[in-house]
Structures are given as C-alpha cells and as structure tokens.
C-alpha cells in the first residue's frame, strides 16, 4: 500500500514541473522581430524628448508596452543613439549621452508602464547639432513573472 501512495504523489508533481518548464521555454518565441500578418510579439518601447541644448540633461520617459498575455518584468533597457540630422547638417550620436536603465519593472499582461532614463547633450555639441533629431533604438531585457 505504501508504494502506490508514493507514486501517486511524485507523478503529478513531476508532470506539473515539466509543464511549467515547457511554458517557460515557450516564452522565448517572442524574442525578435514581428511575424508579418500577425500582431507584434515583442515589447514595444517608445519615448522621445525635445528641446535639448548643450549641457542640458532631460528625462526620457520610456513607455513599455507588454503585448503578451503574461506578466513580464523588465530589468535592463539600453538606449542606442543613432546619428542625428538637422537643418545645419549631421550630428553624431555620441554627443547625446544616455545610460542603461537597470531595475525591475513589472508590466502586467497587455499593459504599459513607464521608466525614466536620463539623456544629456554634451556641452561641446557643435553648432550643427542645433535642431537635430537623433533616432533612438532600445534593447530591453525582461523576464516573465
């Protein structure tokens, strides 16, 4: 009588564990890109800041949208600044300084949350950077919770 009782306990536990593990592995399907014809399956990060001038630091409010049906936690966001263009010509992205955001930001399923990143325009930004617009790309890392 003891042996059947042990099996009846371990088997469901193992089955449950394997199911959770499989679900976790399945969570990596949205790692990159957009599957054309379907809804975007990636975190969407948007945000912009205007009115930068040399020596100025501003807060960039990043809106992170979680399109998944599960909750996720974002713990790293890197901001990449590309070469800017303006009425006076090109302005290198290196004049715009940002630092990665690190922390834990829980985003419920299909909800949007905001994180704040500091952006600074270097004091030595040349005159041609006046009115320039720098495209930003983001690299976020998150985990399902």
């Amino acid at each position: 009588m003891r042996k059947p009782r042990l099996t009846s306990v371990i088997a469901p536990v193992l089955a449950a564990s394997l199911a959770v593990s499989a679900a976790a592995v399945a969570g990596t399907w949205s790692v990159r890109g957009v599957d054309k014809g379907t809804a975007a399956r990636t975190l969407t990060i948007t945000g912009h800041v205007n009115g930068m001038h040399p020596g100025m630091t501003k807060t960039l409010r990043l809106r992170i949208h979680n399109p998944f049906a599960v909750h996720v936690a974002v713990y790293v966001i890197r901001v990449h600044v590309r070469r800017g263009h303006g009425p006076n010509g090109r302005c290198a992205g290196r004049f715009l300084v940002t630092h990665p955001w690190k922390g834990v930001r829980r985003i419920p399923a299909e909800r949007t949350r905001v994180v704040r990143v500091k952006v600074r325009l270097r004091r030595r930004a040349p005159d041609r950077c006046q009115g320039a617009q720098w495209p930003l790309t983001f690299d976020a890392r998150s985990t399902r919770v």
Partner: protein
Amino acid sequence: MKRLRVLVPTVLVLLTMPGIAHAQWSSPGGGRSYTRADIAPTGNRPAVSVSGRNVAVSWAVAKFADGASVSGYIVKRYDAGTGTPATINASCTGTIAALTCTEAAVPPGSWYYSVTPKHGAWLGTESPASPTATIASPSLTFTSATTITALPAVKAATIASFVTGETVTWRLDNPSTGTLLTGSIVPTPVPASGSSSASVTIPAATADGPHTVYAVGSSGASTASAAISVDTLPPVVSAAVIQKATGGIPGYVAQGGTYRVYASIIDPGSAITAATANVSTVTTGATASALTAGSWTISGVTYNYRSVLVTASNPLAAGSKAFTITATDSFAHTATTGGFSVIVDSTRPTATYLITANKAGGTAGLAETGDSITYVFSEPMEPESILAGWTGTGTAVTLRLLNANGGGGDRVQIWNAANTAQLPFGTVRLGSTGYTTTSINFTNSTMTISGSSITVVLGTPSGAGTTAVVSSNTRWNPSTTATDWAGNTCQNTSVNEPVPVDPEF
C-alpha cells in the same frame, strides 16, 4: 517518508529552473522614438548709450524654448553707413556672459551693434541692429581768442571725444613732428566723458601767421586740432615801385607826368587794414596816397596794392626820389618801409642816327632777308610806346620797303606783325630809288631792343627787290609818339646816316 518529503521539492525546483532561465525578451525598440535638439534663440535688439568714446551696449536675456538662458553673447559692431563689420574693442570682445558691456575707444563714426546668443558651441540668430551710436571725432576748441598778438600766450581750450584714460601732448603745426608745446588738461587723464578742459602755451618764438595746435592722445586714437593766428608784427612791404601812367618800364617818371605807386605788402597774421604811400618827393603834399588792394604784375613782379593816378610836380628836378610805404594790420601794427625810389627824368629823347646792315654773304644795296636796320636814340626807349605789350624782346613786325614815287628815295616803314598798324618810328628815306620798283612787305621781320637802339631784321619779302648801286644818304625823321622810360616823347629832329654814305642793306 521523510526522504520523500525532501526529494519531491528538490525535484520540483530543479525541473522549474530551465523555464526561468529561458524566460527572457531581448526586444529592439521601435523607430518612432527620438530625441530632438532645440535651436539657439535669436538675440534681442540691444540698446546703446554713448559717453565720449565709450558705448554701453545692453540687451535682454535670450532663452531657449524651455526657458533656459543662453550662457553668453557675441557683440558685434557695424558701420552704420556701409554695414561693414568693425573690429570690436576691449570689454565687448569674446563671449560676454553678462547682459551688458561697454566698448571703449570706439572710433569716430556712426555705428550699430548686434548681439548673437552663444551657448557652448551653438550660435543663435543675430539680433536686429541697435539704434545708431554716433561717436564724434576728437575735437579741440579754444575758449579764448584764437588770434594772438603777444607771445608767449596761454590759451584756454576744451577737448572732447578723446579716449578714456588718455593723457594729452601738444604740438604746433604737425601732430607728430611739430614743436612740442606746454599744455595740460583737467581732469587728467581723460575721463569717461571724453572731455577735459585744457590749457596750452604758444611759445615766444612762434612766427606770425596761421598755425595749427594739435592735441594728441597717448593711445594714438585721438588727435584733434584747432587753428590759431599769431600776429605780433606789423605788415611787411617787400617791394614798391612807381610806374608812369602809360605803363612799361617802371621806376621812371617825368615832371608833370602821371604815375601810380605799386606795393607788395604782406601780413601773415592778419588782414591789412590800411596802406599809403608817401611820394611827397615826387608830388608835393602827397604824403599819404591811399593804396588799394588788387593784383598787378610789372616787369615780372606781382604787387597787391597800388595808388590812384598821381601827378608829378612840375617843375621837378631830375634825379632819384625816395618814397615810403606805410601799412597797418588788423591789430593796429603799423610799419613804414623806405628804401624805395624813382628816377625823375624830364629830358626828351632824340634820334641819334640810323644805320642799315647787309647780312653776311648778302648783296650790298639789295634789301633781302637777314639784312637789318637799326634806329639809335639818345637814350633807352620805352618798348610799350613802340608796340603795345612789347617788353623789348624779339617780336615779329613787318618792314615795308616802299617805292619812292618822289624825292628822297625809297622809304622804310615798320608795321605790326599783322601789317595793319604802323609803328612810331617816323619816316626813313633811303636817298635812292634803286631799292625797289614796287612795295615789298618783309613779314616776320624781328624787332629787338638793346640799350638805346632798336633793330629790325628783315623777314620774308613779298616780292623781289632791286639792287641800288649808288651810295645814298639815308635820312630818318623820328616820330614824337615814341617815349623814353619816363614817358618823355621823342623830339622830331631828323638825322642822317653816319658818314660815309653807302648803299643801304
């Protein structure tokens, strides 16, 4: 059972770990995100305030769209007439962090200013032009009389529009090499207003006449001048002469003749207010014949004063007569200058003789180009009385050789160059009729005077003459129109050629 209680949770933990390890999203951001820079603002129109050579420029703060002020400004100055940028001077150069600056030592002229916001390496838009700032040229103004009648003289003055902080040196007639003068300004150095009172001494050795006093600022950016006139001496009479009314050679007058007194009078320091001639030695009682201003040239000398016509006394003894000139200037400096004289000559000239000459290689007895005829008087004759405007140097005339048509032989007359008016040489009869059978005009003949003789060299004949082969006694009956230097007319007394008689020409 205890072992099972430990094993089951452990297995569960181990089984769930792979799921956690793979639950990561590395998500690129969307292209809609950006950061945009502002543009530097436009400068605000500056205001200007002029004090002497300093211009205070002020402006309102320029801000970015977010309200942040720019960190500095570039101030520029432009020529208001041409719009040409000028080099900005101290205190307004470079980047001005404040909202005002005062440019010093601004050059004279009309200027406008602008300010351009500067933030880091960013330059904003240049402001509209300020109102025009007009900087006066440095000036020196004497506050006391500028005519100096006694030396040394200390003159009060003011200077204006000099550069702040300058000291001033003083020079006479040249700002760099002129005589250094003693002078001072109060206050010194030049204050911000650019103006000071001044005192400068004109030294004793300063010559009469106009002078320029220079105030020279120590920075080299301010030089001003003002004119003065020094007049400590009376007028100077450098020349005076008496000329007979008919003109010509000066310095001679006949008794009873009319004449004028000419004088050259200068006064470097002021105007001549009165000039008179004392010719009482020539004209009784004429101790102060008034001279009036003008310009006349006599025998190459220019005179600026002369008298009205004055009549010489009659009788009047021949000889040299002295006369004086008295002149007075605006400051009542009067001087009487002597050493001038005129020769009184009341003796009428006479014809002495007449002689002809054959040119070298010419034909004796034939009037031809290059031959000559010379009229010799008892004294030098007045050229003006022979031919108007003639001074005695070679001049063109026409010699007419006329056929006799009567007694006394062929005749010689002297006419002007145009052959339209006979000159007062009287009549010359050659004593023979063999010189021509018609009238011949020797045009372009040349008449010269030498001492008491007047010679005419025959020019180009209008026709061929003939050769007189007989000796003829030429006779000259002079004109009474010709005069000597004093204006005495020639006596009408005929003379023959000197012996021995011979063919003429």
